[in-house]
Protein backbone atom coordinates (compact mmCIF):
# COMPACT_ATOMS: atom_id res chain seq x y z
CA UNK A 1 0.00 0.00 0.00
CA UNK A 2 2.73 2.44 0.99
CA UNK A 3 4.63 1.65 -2.20
CA UNK A 4 1.48 2.25 -4.24
CA UNK A 5 0.97 5.63 -2.55
CA UNK A 6 4.61 6.57 -3.22
CA UNK A 7 4.31 5.64 -6.90
CA UNK A 8 1.01 7.51 -7.19
CA UNK A 9 2.34 10.69 -5.62
CA UNK A 10 5.51 10.54 -7.72
CA UNK A 11 3.45 10.17 -10.91
CA UNK A 12 1.32 13.16 -9.93
CA UNK A 13 4.35 15.39 -9.45
CA UNK A 14 6.06 14.12 -12.58
CA UNK A 15 3.00 14.78 -14.69
CA UNK A 16 2.56 18.17 -13.05
CA UNK A 17 6.16 19.14 -13.78
CA UNK A 18 6.94 17.52 -17.09
CA UNK A 19 3.77 18.03 -19.07
CA UNK A 20 2.91 21.60 -18.11
CA UNK A 21 0.98 23.01 -21.05
CA UNK A 22 -0.28 26.32 -19.71
CA UNK A 23 0.44 28.93 -22.33
CA UNK A 24 1.47 32.12 -20.58
CA UNK A 25 4.08 34.17 -22.43
CA UNK A 26 2.90 36.46 -25.22
CA UNK A 27 4.82 39.69 -24.67
CA UNK A 28 7.47 41.35 -22.54
CA UNK A 29 5.93 44.80 -22.95
CA UNK A 30 4.60 46.54 -19.82
CA UNK A 31 0.86 46.48 -19.20
CA UNK A 32 0.63 50.20 -19.95
CA UNK A 33 1.24 49.42 -23.63
CA UNK A 34 -1.43 46.69 -23.79
CA UNK A 35 -4.61 47.14 -25.74
CA UNK A 36 -7.88 46.56 -23.88
CA UNK A 37 -9.14 42.97 -23.60
CA UNK A 38 -12.12 43.89 -25.76
CA UNK A 39 -9.68 44.33 -28.67
CA UNK A 40 -8.63 40.67 -28.33
CA UNK A 41 -12.28 39.62 -28.15
CA UNK A 42 -12.97 41.63 -31.30
CA UNK A 43 -10.04 39.91 -33.05
CA UNK A 44 -11.52 36.50 -32.17
CA UNK A 45 -14.98 37.57 -33.32
CA UNK A 46 -13.49 38.81 -36.60
CA UNK A 47 -11.78 35.42 -37.02
CA UNK A 48 -15.22 33.76 -36.87
CA UNK A 49 -15.40 32.70 -33.23
CA UNK A 50 -18.34 33.19 -30.93
CA UNK A 51 -16.61 34.78 -27.93
CA UNK A 52 -17.68 33.54 -24.50
CA UNK A 53 -15.25 35.45 -22.32
CA UNK A 54 -11.67 36.61 -22.01
CA UNK A 55 -9.14 36.89 -19.23
CA UNK A 56 -5.50 37.72 -18.65
CA UNK A 57 -3.32 34.61 -18.59
CA UNK A 58 0.30 35.46 -17.83
CA UNK A 59 1.17 38.07 -20.43
CA UNK A 60 -1.61 36.96 -22.81
CA UNK A 61 -5.24 37.65 -23.38
CA UNK A 62 -6.95 34.29 -23.32
CA UNK A 63 -10.21 34.31 -25.24
CA UNK A 64 -12.75 31.50 -24.90
CA UNK A 65 -14.30 31.02 -28.30
CA UNK A 66 -16.61 28.59 -30.10
CA UNK A 67 -16.04 28.21 -33.83
CA UNK A 68 -18.67 27.83 -36.55
CA UNK A 69 -18.60 24.04 -36.17
CA UNK A 70 -19.29 24.33 -32.46
CA UNK A 71 -15.77 23.33 -31.39
CA UNK A 72 -14.30 24.89 -28.26
CA UNK A 73 -11.04 26.85 -28.33
CA UNK A 74 -8.85 28.87 -26.05
CA UNK A 75 -7.14 31.58 -28.09
CA UNK A 76 -4.05 33.30 -26.76
CA UNK A 77 -3.40 36.79 -28.08
CA UNK A 78 -0.42 39.07 -27.73
CA UNK A 79 -2.03 42.01 -25.86
CA UNK A 80 0.17 44.59 -27.63
CA UNK A 81 -0.19 43.74 -31.34
CA UNK A 82 -3.12 41.25 -31.02
CA UNK A 83 -1.18 38.57 -32.85
CA UNK A 84 -2.66 35.09 -32.26
CA UNK A 85 0.13 33.29 -30.40
CA UNK A 86 -1.47 29.95 -29.55
CA UNK A 87 -4.69 28.06 -30.14
CA UNK A 88 -5.77 25.30 -27.80
CA UNK A 89 -8.64 23.04 -28.82
CA UNK A 90 -10.70 21.82 -25.87
Amino acid at each position, binding site marked *: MRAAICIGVTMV*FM*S*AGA*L*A*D*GFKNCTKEPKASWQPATAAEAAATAAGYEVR*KSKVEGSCYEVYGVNKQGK*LFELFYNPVDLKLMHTKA*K
Partner: protein
Amino acid sequence: MSTSGDARLPAPPATVAVWDLPLRLCHWALAASVLVAWFSANVDDAVHEISGYVALSLVAFRILWGFVGPRYARFRDFVPTPRVLLRYLSDLAQGRTTLYLGHNPAGAAMTVLLLVLLAIATITGWMQLTRRFFGVTWVEMVHTYSSNLVLVLAIVHVLGVLLMCWLQKENLVPAMITGRKRAASEHKEDG
Protein backbone atom coordinates in the same frame (compact mmCIF):
# COMPACT_ATOMS: atom_id res chain seq x y z
CA MET B 1 2.53 -9.26 12.44
CA SER B 2 3.24 -12.61 14.13
CA THR B 3 3.36 -15.59 11.88
CA SER B 4 5.56 -17.70 14.13
CA GLY B 5 2.72 -18.80 16.40
CA ASP B 6 4.47 -17.53 19.51
CA ALA B 7 2.47 -18.82 22.46
CA ARG B 8 3.06 -15.70 24.54
CA LEU B 9 1.28 -13.46 22.06
CA PRO B 10 -2.45 -13.01 22.65
CA ALA B 11 -4.78 -14.34 19.99
CA PRO B 12 -5.53 -11.67 17.38
CA PRO B 13 -8.81 -9.93 18.17
CA ALA B 14 -11.88 -11.22 16.39
CA THR B 15 -12.71 -9.13 13.34
CA VAL B 16 -15.74 -8.76 11.14
CA ALA B 17 -16.03 -7.79 7.50
CA VAL B 18 -17.45 -4.26 7.30
CA TRP B 19 -16.32 -2.51 4.12
CA ASP B 20 -16.96 -4.53 0.97
CA LEU B 21 -14.38 -4.78 -1.80
CA PRO B 22 -16.07 -2.49 -4.37
CA LEU B 23 -16.48 0.16 -1.67
CA ARG B 24 -12.80 -0.05 -0.70
CA LEU B 25 -11.58 0.06 -4.29
CA CYS B 26 -13.89 3.01 -4.92
CA HIS B 27 -12.58 4.81 -1.83
CA TRP B 28 -8.88 4.56 -2.75
CA ALA B 29 -9.40 5.16 -6.46
CA LEU B 30 -11.41 8.26 -5.58
CA ALA B 31 -8.69 9.47 -3.20
CA ALA B 32 -6.08 8.96 -5.95
CA SER B 33 -8.15 10.62 -8.68
CA VAL B 34 -8.88 13.63 -6.46
CA LEU B 35 -5.16 14.02 -5.73
CA VAL B 36 -4.26 13.74 -9.42
CA ALA B 37 -7.03 16.18 -10.37
CA TRP B 38 -5.88 18.61 -7.70
CA PHE B 39 -2.25 18.66 -8.79
CA SER B 40 -2.99 18.69 -12.52
CA ALA B 41 -5.40 21.65 -12.37
CA ASN B 42 -4.13 24.51 -14.56
CA VAL B 43 -1.04 22.39 -15.24
CA ASP B 44 -2.05 19.55 -17.53
CA ASP B 45 -5.55 19.75 -18.96
CA ALA B 46 -5.64 16.19 -20.33
CA VAL B 47 -4.61 14.63 -17.01
CA HIS B 48 -6.99 16.93 -15.14
CA GLU B 49 -9.93 16.05 -17.37
CA ILE B 50 -9.32 12.29 -17.28
CA SER B 51 -8.92 12.26 -13.48
CA GLY B 52 -12.10 14.33 -13.24
CA TYR B 53 -14.07 11.87 -15.36
CA VAL B 54 -12.71 8.99 -13.28
CA ALA B 55 -13.73 10.80 -10.08
CA LEU B 56 -17.21 11.52 -11.50
CA SER B 57 -17.68 7.83 -12.41
CA LEU B 58 -16.54 6.73 -8.95
CA VAL B 59 -18.87 9.20 -7.23
CA ALA B 60 -21.76 7.95 -9.39
CA PHE B 61 -20.86 4.36 -8.48
CA ARG B 62 -20.65 5.17 -4.77
CA ILE B 63 -24.04 6.88 -4.79
CA LEU B 64 -25.56 3.90 -6.62
CA TRP B 65 -23.79 1.55 -4.17
CA GLY B 66 -25.37 3.53 -1.34
CA PHE B 67 -28.72 2.21 -2.52
CA VAL B 68 -27.95 -1.29 -3.81
CA GLY B 69 -24.72 -2.23 -2.00
CA PRO B 70 -24.32 -4.36 1.12
CA ARG B 71 -25.46 -3.19 4.54
CA TYR B 72 -22.60 -0.96 5.67
CA ALA B 73 -22.38 0.73 2.26
CA ARG B 74 -26.02 1.82 2.30
CA PHE B 75 -27.05 5.39 3.00
CA ARG B 76 -30.06 4.07 4.89
CA ASP B 77 -27.71 2.28 7.24
CA PHE B 78 -25.50 5.24 8.10
CA VAL B 79 -26.96 8.67 7.24
CA PRO B 80 -27.76 10.22 10.64
CA THR B 81 -30.60 12.55 11.51
CA PRO B 82 -29.40 16.10 12.32
CA ARG B 83 -30.24 15.46 15.97
CA VAL B 84 -28.10 12.32 16.20
CA LEU B 85 -25.27 14.08 14.39
CA LEU B 86 -25.34 17.11 16.69
CA ARG B 87 -25.37 14.95 19.81
CA TYR B 88 -22.48 12.90 18.48
CA LEU B 89 -20.48 16.03 17.66
CA SER B 90 -21.11 17.58 21.07
CA ASP B 91 -20.04 14.32 22.74
CA LEU B 92 -17.00 14.26 20.49
CA ALA B 93 -16.06 17.78 21.55
CA GLN B 94 -15.81 16.41 25.09
CA GLY B 95 -13.77 13.43 23.94
CA ARG B 96 -16.62 10.95 24.34
CA THR B 97 -17.46 8.67 21.45
CA THR B 98 -19.82 5.79 20.92
CA LEU B 99 -18.47 2.88 18.94
CA TYR B 100 -19.90 2.09 15.56
CA LEU B 101 -18.98 -0.81 13.34
CA GLY B 102 -19.85 1.09 10.17
CA HIS B 103 -19.74 4.89 9.87
CA ASN B 104 -20.16 6.90 13.05
CA PRO B 105 -22.54 9.88 12.57
CA ALA B 106 -19.67 12.34 12.00
CA GLY B 107 -17.99 10.05 9.47
CA ALA B 108 -21.33 9.50 7.78
CA ALA B 109 -21.94 13.25 7.51
CA MET B 110 -18.47 13.69 6.02
CA THR B 111 -19.11 10.91 3.51
CA VAL B 112 -22.32 12.55 2.32
CA LEU B 113 -20.80 16.04 2.26
CA LEU B 114 -17.77 14.85 0.28
CA LEU B 115 -19.93 12.95 -2.21
CA VAL B 116 -22.19 15.96 -2.77
CA LEU B 117 -19.27 18.37 -3.23
CA LEU B 118 -17.40 15.91 -5.44
CA ALA B 119 -20.52 15.58 -7.58
CA ILE B 120 -20.77 19.37 -7.88
CA ALA B 121 -17.05 19.77 -8.61
CA THR B 122 -16.87 17.01 -11.23
CA ILE B 123 -20.12 17.94 -12.97
CA THR B 124 -19.19 21.63 -13.22
CA GLY B 125 -15.76 20.56 -14.50
CA TRP B 126 -17.42 18.47 -17.18
CA MET B 127 -19.86 21.28 -18.02
CA GLN B 128 -16.97 23.58 -18.91
CA LEU B 129 -16.14 21.25 -21.79
CA THR B 130 -19.63 21.44 -23.23
CA ARG B 131 -20.66 23.97 -25.87
CA ARG B 132 -23.42 25.24 -23.66
CA PHE B 133 -21.28 26.08 -20.61
CA PHE B 134 -17.81 26.66 -22.10
CA GLY B 135 -16.41 29.95 -20.79
CA VAL B 136 -19.41 30.59 -18.54
CA THR B 137 -18.11 32.35 -15.45
CA TRP B 138 -20.49 31.01 -12.81
CA VAL B 139 -19.72 27.39 -13.82
CA GLU B 140 -16.00 28.07 -13.50
CA MET B 141 -16.49 29.71 -10.10
CA VAL B 142 -18.65 26.90 -8.73
CA HIS B 143 -16.04 24.41 -9.98
CA THR B 144 -13.19 26.28 -8.30
CA TYR B 145 -14.95 26.77 -4.95
CA SER B 146 -16.38 23.25 -4.73
CA SER B 147 -13.01 21.73 -5.67
CA ASN B 148 -11.22 23.79 -3.01
CA LEU B 149 -13.83 22.72 -0.48
CA VAL B 150 -13.34 19.06 -1.46
CA LEU B 151 -9.65 19.38 -0.64
CA VAL B 152 -10.34 21.07 2.70
CA LEU B 153 -12.93 18.40 3.59
CA ALA B 154 -10.57 15.61 2.52
CA ILE B 155 -7.98 16.98 4.95
CA VAL B 156 -10.60 17.23 7.73
CA HIS B 157 -11.66 13.65 6.85
CA VAL B 158 -8.09 12.39 7.33
CA LEU B 159 -7.75 14.34 10.60
CA GLY B 160 -11.10 12.94 11.75
CA VAL B 161 -9.93 9.40 11.05
CA LEU B 162 -6.73 10.06 13.02
CA LEU B 163 -8.77 11.53 15.91
CA MET B 164 -11.00 8.43 15.95
CA CYS B 165 -7.98 6.13 15.85
CA TRP B 166 -6.64 7.94 18.89
CA LEU B 167 -9.92 8.17 20.84
CA GLN B 168 -11.00 4.60 20.18
CA LYS B 169 -7.56 2.97 20.09
CA GLU B 170 -8.33 1.26 16.80
CA ASN B 171 -6.36 1.86 13.62
CA LEU B 172 -9.05 2.54 11.05
CA VAL B 173 -6.74 2.77 8.03
CA PRO B 174 -6.20 -1.00 7.66
CA ALA B 175 -9.99 -1.38 7.96
CA MET B 176 -10.39 0.54 4.71
CA ILE B 177 -7.75 -1.73 3.13
CA THR B 178 -8.76 -5.17 4.43
CA GLY B 179 -12.40 -4.24 5.05
CA ARG B 180 -12.27 -5.78 8.52
CA LYS B 181 -12.78 -4.12 11.87
CA ARG B 182 -12.67 -5.41 15.41
CA ALA B 183 -15.83 -7.23 16.39
CA ALA B 184 -18.37 -5.38 18.50
CA SER B 185 -17.55 -7.40 21.62
CA GLU B 186 -13.94 -6.26 21.36
CA HIS B 187 -15.16 -2.70 21.09
CA LYS B 188 -17.14 -2.93 24.29
CA GLU B 189 -14.28 -4.45 26.25
CA ASP B 190 -12.09 -1.53 25.29
CA GLY B 191 -14.88 0.88 26.26
